[in-house]
């Protein structure tokens, strides 16, 4: 009986650790996607969200963004920042709820925050795909763009996990 209890406790510890690691990874991916200027890449240009890196005479120079649809760019900036903020908030709320939630209850607040973060990054990536660089043939999407979509998937999975997970009751 004791052995079963110990094993069960170990299993729950592992699950908890796994969830926290996944959450921290998601936060890191979101931060990289937001901060690194690499949503659109060509041979000599790496651009977007905040500025433009241009390779002239084998030196990278940082310049401003010009001739962009302002409202869409700023919406993408805002929503990706919000996604980062909500993901970080969700982590803190999860840790707080681990200690304060009555047994047998679901982590609803954490799940909701994570769902909002998922929504925000989805809005950001969608608007970017639809409105910016929609007609350009030269170049392709950079690693920040890819990371944005990957973190969308992760945040969605985590949100669903939090909404289903129950605090263990004895």
């Amino acid at each position, binding site marked *: 009986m004791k052995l079963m209890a110990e094993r069960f406790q170990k299993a729950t510890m592992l699950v908890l650790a796994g969830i926290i690691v996944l959450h921290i990874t998601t936060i890191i991916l979101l931060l990289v996607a937001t901060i690194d200027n690499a949503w659109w890449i060509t041979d000599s240009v790496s651009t977007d969200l*905040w*500025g433009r890196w241009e390779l002239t005479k084998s030196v990278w*120079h940082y*310049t*401003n*963004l*010009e001739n962009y649809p*302002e*409202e869409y760019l*700023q*919406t993408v*900036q*805002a*929503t990706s*920042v*919000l996604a980062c*903020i909500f993901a970080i908030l969700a982590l803190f709320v999860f840790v707080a709820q681990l200690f304060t939630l*009555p*047994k047998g209850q679901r982590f609803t607040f954490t799940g909701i925050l994570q769902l909002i973060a998922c929504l925000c990054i989805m809005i950001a990536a969608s608007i970017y795909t639809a409105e910016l660089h929609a007609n350009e043939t030269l170049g392709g999407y950079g690693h920040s763009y890819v990371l944005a979509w990957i973190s969308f998937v992760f945040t969605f999975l985590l949100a669903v996990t939090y909404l289903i997970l129950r605090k263990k009751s004895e």
Partner: protein
Amino acid sequence: MLTFLALASVVLLGIVPEQSQAIVIYTGWERHALVGSDIRLSCSFFSWRWTSEDVTFSWTYRPDGSRDSISIFHYTGGAPYVDNKGPFRDRVEFVGNPGRRDGSILIKNLDFNDNGTFTCDAKNPPDIVGRPSSVRLLVFEKVPIQAGVITGAIIGSVLGLLVLIVVIYYLMRFLVARRVFSLSVSKHGKKKKEGSQQRQGPAPPADPSKVKASVSEKKKQDLTQPPLFPIISTLSRQHWLISSEALYVCAHRGKRYAQEYKRESLTYAHQPARLDESPRTERCCPSMSDLMRKAKYKKSPTQITQVKSKRFLEICCKIGQKQPVKSWKRLYRDTVT
């Protein structure tokens, strides 16, 4: 010895500057300005030599899209010479300080045609080998803000909305709790009042001072007697509102039950069935002391405590009752009356 040192220093002074004789010129990389405004283009240099009197600065301008550059400013022999024929005629002013190696110029009243690259070349004889540095000028109708107003507005409003929702949620819970408590107070208070009036009899005093006195007396009596309001009411399935008095009563009752249970388990110690249950009291007692602590800290009997029902039931269940308590109100009534 001294001559050797002197020779060595002379040789060193001779060698070192020759190797690093390049002059390094610093300007900005890019400058933004509004149409009609003035802009100061800064240029300074670093040189191993002292600033000589023959130091020269010269600025040239290359428009965007053109390959030719024209000279617009030259400083030499201690005097500045500005453009008097070209596109910057009467618009360039020297604002630098050659003594401090600063060769900055001020360009006034900018226009869209001033977009281009400005190159500063400084020479500090005998230090003349160096690469000129360029600064790009961008003239805008309105200055572009990178993370703009829309970004800040969206972020601020969403976060503000979140904070508002959380505050409203907790406020509603608190208000509902108060309302439920006060409603049940008034309901039970009416019932008890009717009961006590029947016992005492007729004629309340007409004098206002006497009325006040009787009210205060009654209040004092109330504190020693069981309170006239129900002390336990259900807020929802999860939460119970319980006054500090009730907390105290249940804690004491629970303690008494715990002692009785312990005594019982000791008497029946030889029966193996009871032995399994005795460790329960030890496990309950920490929770019991927690409840007692909570009861002690409340000062007035009407202070409301919100208790999560499951835990409360667990505690009092484990302590002495052989089965879960179904009605707390009945328990209180039985205890006190």
